[in-house]
């Protein structure tokens, strides 16, 4: 039994960054708090806890969501990818690499959310221009103002796909 939770916990199964986990969670625990507090995956950030900043963006079954707006129990059976799960061993995901090369962050706090959001964006396939990237990334705030470089990084990661 978890402290303060009585017996009201639910059993769920989550695949997180490739590993299948069986978890007892309180029904009120958000996916974000589960990741950060229980699983130690603090790469997903909490900037507002209200779905207003995008810092907590993760991929659930390949789709970008604000993990602070999702209760963990709602995601029973889902596959979750966080910033910690994007690189393959030492090889960074092309977006991670593009973010470094374009200096697409300063403090780095919004960065995991920006990158996960960008992975989702590319998968959606709707963004074709810089203006579309701007529009479709507008749920991810960056108070350091790295926006121009984030757009450049996403554009760079998109390019090979365009050429293909």
């Amino acid at each position: 039994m978890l402290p303060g939770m009585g017996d009201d916990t639910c059993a769920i199964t989550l695949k997180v960054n490739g590993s299948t986990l069986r978890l007892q969670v309180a029904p009120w625990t958000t996916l974000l708090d589960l990741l950060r507090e229980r699983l130690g995956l603090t790469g997903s950030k909490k900037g507002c806890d209200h779905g207003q900043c995008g810092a907590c963006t993760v991929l659930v079954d390949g789709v970008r969501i604000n993990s602070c707006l999702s209760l963990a129990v709602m995601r029973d059976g889902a596959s979750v990818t966080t910033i910690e799960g994007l690189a393959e061993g030492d090889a960074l995901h092309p977006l991670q690499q593009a973010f470094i090369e374009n200096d697409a962050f300063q403090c780095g706090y919004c960065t995991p959310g920006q990158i996960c959001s960008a992975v989702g964006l590319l998968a959606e396939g709707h963004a074709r221009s810089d203006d579309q990237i701007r529009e479709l990334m507008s749920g991810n705030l960056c108070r350091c103002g790295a926006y121009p470089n984030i757009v450049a990084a996403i554009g760079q990661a998109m390019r090979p796909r365009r050429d293909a």
Partner: protein
Amino acid sequence: MTTGKTGEPHDRVDGRAKVTGQARYAGEFTAPDLVHGFVVGSAIARGKIVRIDAAEALALPGVLQVYTHENTPRLAWRDRSWRDMVAPGGSPLRPLHDAEIRFSGQPVALVIAESFELAREAAGLVKVDYEAAPHETRLAEVESEAHEPARGKKGYTPPPKPRGRADEALAAAPVRVEATYEHPPLHHNPMEPHATTVIVEADGSLTIHDKTQGVSNSRDYVCKVFGLASDQVRVVTPFVGGGFGSGLRPQYQLFLAVLAARELRRSVRVVLSRQQMFTIGYRPWTRQRVALGAERDGRLCALIHEAVGNTSRFEDYCENVVPWSGVLYECPNTRLEYGVAALDLYTPIDARAPGAVTGLWALESAIDELADALDIDPLALRLKNYAEEDQDHRRPFSSKALRDCYREGAARFGWHRRTLAARSMREGALQIGWGMATGIWEAQQAPSQAKALLTVDGRLHVASASGEIGPGTYTIMSQIAAEQLGLPLAAVRFELGDTALPPAMIQGGSATASSVGSAVLAVCRALQHTLLKLAQALPDSPFGGRTLADVEFVDRGLRLRSGVAPAVPLAAIMRHAGLGSIAEQATAIPDLARQSRYTSNAHSAVFVEVAVDEALGTVTVRRVVSAVAGGRILNPKTARSQILGGVVWGIGMALEEHSMLDHGLGRFVNHNLGEYHVPVHADVPAIDVVFVEERDDVVNPLGVKGLGEIGIVGVAAAIANAVFHATGRRIRELPITLDKLL
């Protein structure tokens, strides 16, 4: 591998940690015995607590304690102990000290529980009864009671004495403009909320991960308030998720987390919610009057700038709003005044380019109004009044490449194609406006220390208790060290954010590169010195009788500048001396005797194009050129990012940001990121950043001026001026929202 160098665009050395989620921020450290705190804030703006009832909260299993003013131990009793390094004059807030309420959201209780959710839930069950007293949160109501700020705030300089007779000169001037400018309180809202994790070590000492721009400031504060020896408290903050000034002073979650950890002897984490981020400091609400008098040819003959900013009732926050007006333009008659007026709000705190952002918003708007009154191009007017020396202090500038900023910025922007009259540029339904403004910020250096350890395997470890709030401290310090010792960047590791390291200045005011950079330079010079001495002892040493001026450190070795011989590897020098490593420590102190003979400022010229939809009143910033004279640029890549960030902040200030008060409640009501609008991707166009060449050997040994602030200064005025050019409407109250244009 090539030698790491300054002046070259390097990727951030902490980039990998940041893009993989490995960079750890204050609220992300943990311990097996960790418990969580949640803050209860006051519901009234002024008055006192008459009853506080935590019984229901305490009855929840897993709730460990609720701290209020009734059960918090008495701590330090002198104000001096509560005053941190950068506190303004007055009596700092003492959280949970007594029943008195001084602002809405003031912490009145801290709930500690086994989980975060439980602490939050229990916080909602704490019942507080208040006796409310009348409060005042309207600046206009207290403006006439403005007073000179109490002394004590570091970096604050009262306005200079008047020069000439400004009021008479204004009355006699052939052309006059006079107006009042205002901007609301603005909260920093770094993406990382303020957070503190206190780990109680086995020996009872505390390791504190605090969101701060100065680990030493947090450590000293905790020691003084709780009466602890400095070896009992270590503050470790390797990454900060944005500060912008909000982390300059210890925020109340630090006190609360330490209080609970000491009482419970358990590790404690307290994280503020986004709503609670509106209960800490902010850029103060400020009203300013600027009056300019000019000859018909545009020469300024009178300049008056008066400003009143808000403060709290218990501290006199103050900032340098008006002095810039005496320095930027040549004018024989100036009068500059500044005062603060108390409201029932928390004390403001420095926010990115404090004071300058405020003063230049008014001054640079007024200059534009004068240009309009004179029918002169606004850039030409600025050049006509260009100051060649600091008239207020009667001393030269150590360097001032502002003219180059104007020239290069204008060229990049295509300013010469601008038509003079307002409402003269149009694209279909869109009114187009081009505006510009000047930026200025003080180049500063403060004492800092660094240590270095060079090992025979060719690795260099350099450390200083500085911070990384986002400017690229890890990277530029590594570059400086690598360059000095001829090492590849990857061979250097720079460590910061730990009070166990040699002390550094607090990270603010754009002075880290200058202050900590100079300390890194000094410690590397000490290493160079030692290495040269050791090299002179080599058999048949080519270095006999040579000084550091004769040699250079390249390719992991040492060689004569004049010679053709390959470099002698540093490893060989150390091995010959039988040394596995060399350690040095150094302090860099500003050369005040020399620096005080000059005025040293960074400058910028910012050019903006806006499009205004005439029917809807919406303003879109379409492009920005920011030309900056900031001394030597250590890393063009991270430097550009700093300017981008400043410009984005300027866009927010001009068009979006507004901490709105409900004066009935005396509270900031749009206290979330859905209603406090900051720029998002779609609001930010392409931004062109130009660094003009500027050499300065006075400011510090590196010749850098700092870039964290200069990027924002002037941006709001440039946008307001562009909006005027587009629409013919002069908006003097920020933000420029569509209701003001319809």
